Each structure stands twice: as structure tokens, then as C-alpha cells.
């Protein structure tokens, strides 16, 4: 087939445009687990609404102004032999018009913006679930003062109930970002900030630190787990076992064993031996220096450097969203944290043997 | 070489004014920081209040307002003195110029000495840069002002030596005027700092 020259020229111009369109479509068709464009809560919906309002206005302005520019470039290109153009110096009426029109458009954006500012600044009602969020280099801690739960990495919230996050940091400035439910809020030492949201779907969603906070800022993620009310109640009950906020974390080994067997639906004696062996390694390997763990002398500690591990087996990721919680990943992490997350503050006092690592992996995974 | 300027003003004078404009923001930032941290020190000694440390050590309010008032007054007078010296320089009255310029420099030196005494006294009393926010913001603010006074004194002394060697005839009085402008600015800044730090409780 021979294309006519005009078509060929046409194709030469439009081929890159078509390619670009295909690229955009391919790019947009992907699923972005951390997108801000698919809000799943009231706060994020409010924000999205404001954003989309500005986007439509901006798109209109963009088409008009760039259109005028391109039109002028094409229309007024130099033609040989043309006379000198009229030497206009300006036009006061035009100046006034193109001052007032943008100002009016901005006023139309400003009104809903201000309304949204005050709406988002409102305090949530008393029925809101209170959660304390604490930033650490480089992981997130979550405390539920009313439910007496201390956890990290996974923020469980009940769908349909407003959650009020009261946020601070243990070290440097971070920013807590949950794209699908709310925006970001910076956290400052010795200061509390808050943000609230109500999830309207269940599921697991990603979020991460958005303020540069040092070497591993790029690996300071977390998951928001939006549970149905029943799931949330079950999660609450299991997490309360051994909590440092209940009875100072004091629980007998046998009580812990019963709870763990129930959580894992496994009542075999093998569980007891894994627990005993794991605890021994946990103490001997030096884990105890930085981590609170039920059944150990540090079970009640709330100010340690590392996250509380009493229910680590129930979390979706390890090392703050770096790796999914699997046996292999956990083993790799315990062998050499620095190879998984270079610069991480977790320093092993001594390298662990393969045997110790597998004992710990089994032990930690049981702590659901 | 004299260049006719677009404004008719002397170019060096415009430069000094421009520089002073920029310096205003420098001191505004320092003073703002002092004000932001006023009363937010976690431990004493405090500027205007007594303080007893957890270990039972007692601290009186640390500022010595009387001494600093004298220094302030002398610095203010020195602004007048430098005007008189400039008048002498412009009219070719050598004695008047040298005398008042000398007096200005002496006031400046007294002010610096007062500040050196004040700083050593504070350190002796237990207020250092690192003690609390008051120490940090006070020493930084007044220290930078003191540095400016010192540079002013060096500049005025240079002009004084020139004058002494007969190199400041009336047509070159501008050399003194530039230093005088800077000196006035340094005084004016102190007129803001003094009430903010010493009088406001």
C-alpha cells in the first residue's frame, strides 16, 4: 500500500501524538495502590473535590491560553515582504479585562477552598476512635489509648467510624500520609498534630512518610487496614493480649501460650516448643534491647527504639513496608537488616546463626 | 573622578543606604527570633524573673539594667557627636572634627567594653549560649549588634587617623559621612533592641 504524500506527512506529525496517547493510556490503566485520585474516605473525598474543581478550571484556562499562544505563533509567523507590523504599545481595557477575569476565576476556586479549609480543620466528634501516631526513624508506631493497644506498621481502623489521629514524633520531623483516606500531616517533636478520616470501604491500603527524614526516608511506609466492625473487634481482642498498656504487659507464659494457640488455631505441643526456643533466642540474641515483646522482661516498655513485637506475626509487612511478611523475608531481615534497608538503626549485637534465625522466624510468626 | 549620576546623589551614599536597608532585615530576623523565644526557656537564669533550679540553686534576674542604660545613653550621644564631627569636617574646622570624632569613638569603645563586661558577668553567673533559649537568643542578638558597633569603631578610627594626617579636607567629608550613616544605623538598631531585651517584661 502506498500512502498518499499528504497522508504520509500527516502521519509523520500525528504519529508521535498517537504514541503519546497510547503511552498515557497504558500508564493510566495501571492500578496505583497509593493513589490520591481514588479516595476511600470522607476527608480524602473532600480534598479530591477541591482538587478536581481546580483541575477543571485549570484545564479550561490551559486550553484557552495555550490555544491563543499557538494560534498567534501560527497566524503571525513572518511572511517575506510583509510590512512592518502595527507598533501597538498596549491596551488599557484589555489589561483590565485580563486582570479581572483570572481574579474572578480564582475567587470561584477560593470560595470552596476556604470552606474546605474550615471543614477539614474541624475537630472530630467524641465518638471518633482515638489513635496516637508516633513517627520514628524509619517506622510508624500506632497506639490506641482507649483500646489499650500498641502496634506498628499496620494501622487498623474500623470502616464507617471516624478515626482521629493524634500525631507526634520520637525524633525528627516526619509527615504521615494516607493518600486514600486523608492528606498529609507533618509531625513535630513535643507537639501534637491531628487529622481525621472515616473509611468507607474495607481493604488494605498503602501510605508512607512524606517529609524527608534521613537515610531511609524512602522506606518508611505503613499499611492502613480498614476492617469491618466485626473484624476490627476480633483484631482488637487479639492485640490486647500482652499489651504494655494492660497490667504493665505482665502475662504468664502459659496464658500467652493459650492465646497464641487460639490465634493460630493450633493447639499442638509443637507450639510450646517453638515459643520456648524462640524466646530464648530473642533474649540471647539481643532483640530485647530494642523491642518490647510479651512474655519477656521488656513486655511493658513503651519508649524503646524499635517497634513492639508482641503481635508482629499479624502485620502485613516487615521493616516499615519494605518487604511482605513471609518466612523468607523475615529470615533475610534477621540475618542482615542492613542489606535489606541500608542505614537502618537495627543493629544486631552479634550475627545470628541460621538455626537461631529459623527459631526466631517461627516464634515471631506465631505472634499473631 | 566624578560621574554625574541619574539621581544627583552620591553613589557611595546610595550604596550605604541600600546596605542599611538589607541590614534591617538581618536585625529584624534576630529580634523576631528573640521575641518568639521570649519566656520559652526551659531552665534559668531568666532575664527578668528569679529562678530556683531543681537542685536548689537560686538565680536572681540576670539583666543589669543600670549599667546598660549608661551604655545606651552614651551610644545615643555618640550619634550627636558624630554629627558635630561631620559638621566640623564639612566646614574645615579641624579641631571640632577631631574632638567630636574622638568622643564618638570613645563612646563606642565604652559600649563595647560594657558588653564584654556584661557577657563575662553572665557567663560567670551561669548563663551561657547553651544554657537556655534566652542565653542563645540574647547572646546572638546583642553579640551581632556588638560586632556591628566594633566594625563601626574600626571604621571611625580609620577616618580619624586619616583626619589626623590631614587627609580629610572638607571636599572629602563624605568619607566621614558614610561612616556616620552606618554609625547612626547601629545606634537606631540598639534603640529597638534595648527596650525589647531590657525593658519589656
Amino acid at each position: 500500500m502506498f500512502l498518499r504524500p499528504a497522508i504520509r506527512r500527516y502521519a509523520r506529525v500525528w504519529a508521535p501524538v498517537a504514541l503519546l496517547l497510547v503511552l498515557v493510556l497504558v500508564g493510566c490503566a495501571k492500578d496505583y495502590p497509593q493513589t490520591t485520585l481514588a479516595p476511600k474516605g470522607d476527608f480524602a473525598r473532600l480534598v479530591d473535590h477541591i482538587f478536581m474543581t481546580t483541575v477543571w478550571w485549570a484545564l479550561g484556562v490551559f486550553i484557552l491560553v495555550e490555544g491563543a499562544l499557538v494560534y498567534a505563533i501560527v497566524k503571525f509567523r513572518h511572511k517575506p515582504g510583509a510590512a512592518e507590523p502595527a507598533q501597538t504599545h498596549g491596551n488599557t481595557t484589555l489589561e483590565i479585562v485580563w486582570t479581572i477575569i483570572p481574579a474572578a476565576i480564582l475567587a470561584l476556586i477560593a470560595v470552596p477552598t476556604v470552606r474546605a479549609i474550615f471543614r477539614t480543620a474541624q475537630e472530630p466528634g467524641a465518638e471518633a476512635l482515638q489513635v496516637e501516631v508516633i513517627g520514628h526513624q524509619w517506622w510508624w508506631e500506632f497506639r490506641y489509648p482507649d483500646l489499650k493497644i500498641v502496634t506498628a506498621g499496620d494501622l487498623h481502623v474500623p470502616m464507617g467510624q471516624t478515626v482521629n489521629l493524634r500525631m507526634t514524633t520520637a525524633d525528627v520531623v516526619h509527615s504521615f500520609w494516607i493518600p486514600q483516606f486523608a492528606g498529609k500531616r507533618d509531625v513535630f517533636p513535643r507537639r501534637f498534630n491531628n487529622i481525621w478520616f472515616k473509611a468507607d470501604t474495607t481493604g488494605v491500603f498503602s501510605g508512607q512518610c512524606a517529609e524527608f527524614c534521613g537515610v531511609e526516608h524512602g522506606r518508611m511506609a505503613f499499611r492502613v487496614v480498614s476492617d469491618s466492625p466485626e473484624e476490627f473487634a476480633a483484631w482488637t481482642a487479639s492485640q490486647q493480649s500482652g499489651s504494655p498498656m494492660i497490667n504493665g504487659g505482665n502475662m504468664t507464659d502459659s496464658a500467652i501460650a493459650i492465646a497464641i494457640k487460639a490465634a493460630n488455631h493450633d493447639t499442638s505441643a509443637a507450639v510450646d516448643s517453638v515459643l520456648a526456643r524462640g524466646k530464648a533466642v530473642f533474649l540471647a540474641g539481643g532483640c530485647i534491647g530494642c523491642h518490647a515483646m510479651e512474655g519477656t522482661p521488656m513486655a511493658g516498655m513503651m519508649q524503646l527504639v524499635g517497634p513492639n513485637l508482641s503481635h508482629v506475626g499479624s502485620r502485613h509487612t516487615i521493616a516499615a513496608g519494605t518487604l511482605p511478611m513471609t518466612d523468607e523475608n523475615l529470615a533475610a531481615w534477621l540475618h542482615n537488616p542492613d542489606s535489606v534497608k541500608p542505614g537502618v538503626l537495627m543493629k544486631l549485637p552479634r550475627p545470628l546463626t541460621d538455626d537461631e534465625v529459623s527459631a526466631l522466624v517461627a516464634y515471631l510468626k506465631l505472634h499473631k | 573622578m566624578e560621574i554625574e549620576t541619574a539621581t544627583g546623589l552620591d553613589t557611595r551614599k546610595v550604596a550605604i543606604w541600600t546596605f542599611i536597608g538589607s541590614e534591617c532585615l538581618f536585625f529584624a530576623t534576630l529580634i523576631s527570633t528573640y521575641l518568639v523565644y521570649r519566656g520559652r526557656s526551659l531552665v534559668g537564669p531568666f532575664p527578668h524573673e528569679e529562678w530556683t533550679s531543681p537542685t536548689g540553686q537560686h538565680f536572681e534576674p540576670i539583666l543589669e539594667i543600670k549599667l546598660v542604660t549608661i551604655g545606651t545613653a552614651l551610644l545615643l550621644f555618640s550619634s550627636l557627636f558624630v554629627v558635630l564631627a561631620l559638621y566640623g569636617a564639612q566646614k574645615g574646622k579641624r579641631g571640632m572634627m577631631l574632638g567630636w570624632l574622638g568622643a564618638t569613638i570613645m563612646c563606642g569603645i565604652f559600649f563595647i567594653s560594657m558588653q564584654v563586661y556584661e557577657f563575662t558577668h553572665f557567663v560567670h553567673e551561669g548563663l551561657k549560649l547553651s544554657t537556655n533559649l534566652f542565653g542563645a537568643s540574647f547572646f546572638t542578638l546583642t553579640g551581632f549588634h556588638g560586632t556591628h558597633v566594633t566594625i563601626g569603631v574600626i571604621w571611625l578610627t580609620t577616618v580619624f587617623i586619616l583626619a589626623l594626617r590631614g587627609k580629610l579636607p572638607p571636599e572629602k567629608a563624605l568619607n566621614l559621612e558614610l561612616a556616620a550613616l552606618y554609625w547612626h544605623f547601629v545606634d537606631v538598631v540598639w534603640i529597638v533592641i534595648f527596650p525589647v531585651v531590657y525593658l519589656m517584661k
Partner: protein
Amino acid sequence: MATTALDHAPAHHAEKTGLWSWITTVDHKRIGILYGATAFAFFLIGGIEALLIRIQLAQPDQKFVSPETYNQLFTMHGTTMIFLAVMPLSAMFFNYLIPLMIGARDVAFPRLNAMSYWVFLFGGLVLNSSWLFHSAPDSGWFGYANLTEKQYSPGANVDFWIVGLQILGIASLAAAVNFFVTIVQLRAKGMRLMRMPIFVWMSFITQVLLLLAFPVITVALVMLLMDRQFGTHFFIPAGGGDPILWQHLFWVFGHPEVYILILPAFGVVSEVLPVFSRKPLFGYAAMVFSGCFIAFLGFGVWSHHMFATGMGPFADTFFSLVTMLIAVPTGVKIFNWIGTIWGGQLHFKTPMLFALAFVAMFIIGGLSGVMHASPPADLQQTDTYFVVAHFHYVMFGGSIFALTAGAYYWYPKMFGKMLDEGLGKLHFWLMLIGFNVTFFPMHFVGLNGMPRRVYTYPAELNFGFWNLIETFGAFTLGLSFLVFIVNVYKTWRSDAKAPADPWNGATLEWAIPSPPPEFNFAELPVVVGRDPLWELKRQRGGMLPEPPFHSGQGIHMPSPSYWPIVTALGIAVFFCGFLVGFPYVNIAGVLLTFLGIYSWAFEPA
């Protein structure tokens, strides 16, 4: 003709060559070239840093560089591009053009001008020397406390950043005083303020911003340095200090800094568009006043960088509304640029292409700016790649496109040779395509959840596709500047001379030879209107003849001096004392500075 007799007279000011003549030069044109060459070298370094960043991010979970190195790369990329590339490239134009455009023989203080350059050079070298010690700054160009405090950044990285920025601040302030006074004082007869070329106007406003913004960062850096080295607690919460104060002080400087980077670009484009449209700038007065208004408002919007800190609804509302208000004078500028080309005869020479692309790209950057002027929307956008896209559309699509337009436009004036049009156009198209391929997808990536300043991202977030495309774009951009270098090299080798007025220019610099003699104007011009050269040509009914040779006999020019570089060295040594932690170095620096200043003050001009 009276001038023909002079043609054969020996040049009074024979152009001296050799290294020493450059070290001791006080000629604003030579200093301008020094600024340009140095800034371009730093621009290439910053560009290489950007390419390394793009390689690392091309695919998820890459280990091309370590997290430490990555953090140093993005910190130095930002710091270099802002302080060592765009600002001094603008300074090149200030230096070279302001005296020529206002009809002066030099700046108000030629030696201070030389000192500014040397201080800038030393500052840039100190900052970049940190690479040799594996201690390049690694806490971002914004250096947020308390991460930058000793406890969390124990190395010398942050000290290099503080010391480098302080030295560069001195250079900027000294230059700002100089150019401010030059514009106020040395305008030719008849050049009233409202007859100044618009580039001079925008430069003038920039100097005011520099004078008012830099003292603030100077104080903030002093306090951070004292926290790190003298035990104060300005930004340490344990001692009662407040990291938020750092953010306020930084952005009180940082936002006007944005206008310091863009206003000279506005000026360049406002010169280029009329010349290649054969039509005067549309709405001169509106351009001047909108520039002033932008600068004024620029000091009232700093907290829009801090919406996520939770300032409360009233502060949010104030800063949001003022930020939106800035869009109005900015819009006025864009409309006036379109008004300028409207009805003209557009000649698409390379400078014009870059200037038109500037307008097109800046519109995009401006519109995304309005999107995060809204605090609730900004809670999603801040610290994501959406913001990275936005400010590259204003800083690269804006400043760099405009400065490149200026480089092609004034190159013949500066070096007496024309850059190649073919290579220029290749440079343009590669840069335009590379730029958009690099930065446009960042809008999507940011909105889809990719934060800034992350050294990698997990595969499951699906950012890999766009990031790979961005990396291709970045290399296209790099290639475009390779073409530019080839162009400069080719021109440098050629013998073809450029005429005094190759573009049919409107401003005074085109009335004198290319390159201009040391004294610029044999006879100081008298100005009667806004586009003095066009008026002259219209009166004559055609192009002006090549200006006659003038030996410069009887024109007094300031003599060269090495004291500016000595003083600059003293200033650099003083600040480096804080790096080595050895007070004697500081004292030596102070003494050297005083030696320089005194010798310079008592040296015959």
C-alpha cells in the same frame, strides 16, 4: 568624519589577555563571562547529579546508588541548580547587560563586582569540595531542622551546606547592592525609570528581593550552625527550641528566592519576544507593575510551603488567598507576552523559539501552582512528584528556557560570533521534548502517590513505567545540552564575525560593536524613548551602520586589582574555619578580609 582619524590611533585600552588579566579584571563584561562560564560548569554538575538520580529511579528497588549517596545527590542537585546555576546565570546577564542597557561604562562598584564573583566561585567550590570528603550535604536544599541538628546529622555534610550557603549569600548580597545602586545611579541621560528596558526593571526588582530575603537565611543559618557547634537549642526541641521556626525563616527567604530565580527570566523573555515579533512589548507599564506586585506579594506567601504543618484554618486561609492572588499579576504577564506577539511578524530564530517555549511551559507551571495554593488539595500534593513537576515547569520550563533564549540572543554581543542556527534549533527541539517527557509524567506519578526525595520505591506501587519514561526524557535533556556545547565549540572555532546588531535589536547594547570595547560607549548615549535603537533606525529609515572603531583615548576606566580576590579569599577562609573547627582559621580569614578591604580602599581607583 571626525572619527576616521581615531581609527588608526593605537588602542588606548589594549585588551589584555592571560590568566592574570582575568583574575584582576574589574570589567563588568569579563566578570559577566566568568559568571556565565562558572555557572554553566556548575549547571552541568547539577545535571549529572540529576541523571544519576534518574538512573536510580528508572526502575523499582534499584541499587545503582546507596541511600546515602542518593540523598547527597538530590540535595546537591537542588542546591547547585538554585545557588550555583540559575542565580549566577542570571548574574551573568545582570553583569553583562545592565550597564550596556542603561548606557553606562561599568557598574557602580567594579571591584565589589569582582569580589562578588570570586566569593561566589569560592562558595561553589567549598560546597562541591564536600564530595571529595564523602560528606556532601544530604538533608535537602531546605535543610529542615531538627534532622539537620548534630544528633541526627553528626557528619560534616550539613556544615558544608551551611558554610557554602553563607559564602554564597555574601556574594549575592554584595552583588545586589552593586546592581541596585548601578540601576539607580548610572542610567544614561533621559533614561527615566519608565524608559528602562524591561530586563533592567526585572533585574532591579530581583536585587530588591535579594537584599531583603538573604539576610533572613543568613540569620537562620547562623542559628543552625550555633546549634551544631556551640550548643545552643534554637531548633532543638529538648532545649525548648522549635523546628517550625526554621521552616518559617527558611521560607521567608525561600519563597522570594523563587522570584529571584524567575524574575530575570521574565526580563529576558520580555526583551526577546518584541525583537523577534518586530513589535514593542505589549503593556510595558503593566509588565513593570505586575513584576513589582509579584515581588511584594512574594514576601507574604511563605507559609504555603507549610500547609501540612497544621497552622490552623485562619493562617491557611490567609496564605492560600495571597498565593492565589499572585496568579493575577503572573497571568497579566503571560497575557501581555501573547499580546506582544499578537499581530507581529514572528521570526523563529533560536532565541525566539526558546522564549515562546518559555511562555508555553510557564503557563503549565503556573496552573499547577494554583492547584496547590488550595491547602486541602496541597495536603495531598505537597512533598510528592506533583510538586517536583510543578517547580520544574517554572524553574526549568521557566528560568532555564528563558536563560537559554538569552544565551542565544546575546551570545553574538558577548563573543562577536553567531551561534549556529541549525544546531540551535536541534538543541531547542531536543530540550523541549526531553523536558516534557521528563517532567510531565511526574504530575501523574505524584498524584498517584509517589513522594519526593525517596531513593527508591517498591514495585507494587507501579511507578516504574512512568519513571522509566522520565529517565529517557532526562537523557534527551542531557543530550540537548551536549548539542549546545558542540554549538559553542563550533562557533568558537569559526572565524565568522557577528555584526553589532544581528537581530534588529531595540536596546542600547546593539548600538555598540560586538563584542563591546572595554569602555562600552565611546560617547555616553542620550535616551529619548523606550526602544531607543528602534527609534533611531526608524528615523534613519534602515539599519544603522557598523559603529566606528574608537581607541578609547581619554576615557578613564577603573584599573585592574587583585584585592577583590584577596578579600573574597579572606571571606571564604573565615567561613571554612567553621568546617575545620579551628578558630585560628576564622581569625586568619578575618585578618585577610581586612587586609583586602584596606588595601582596596586605599588603592588609587
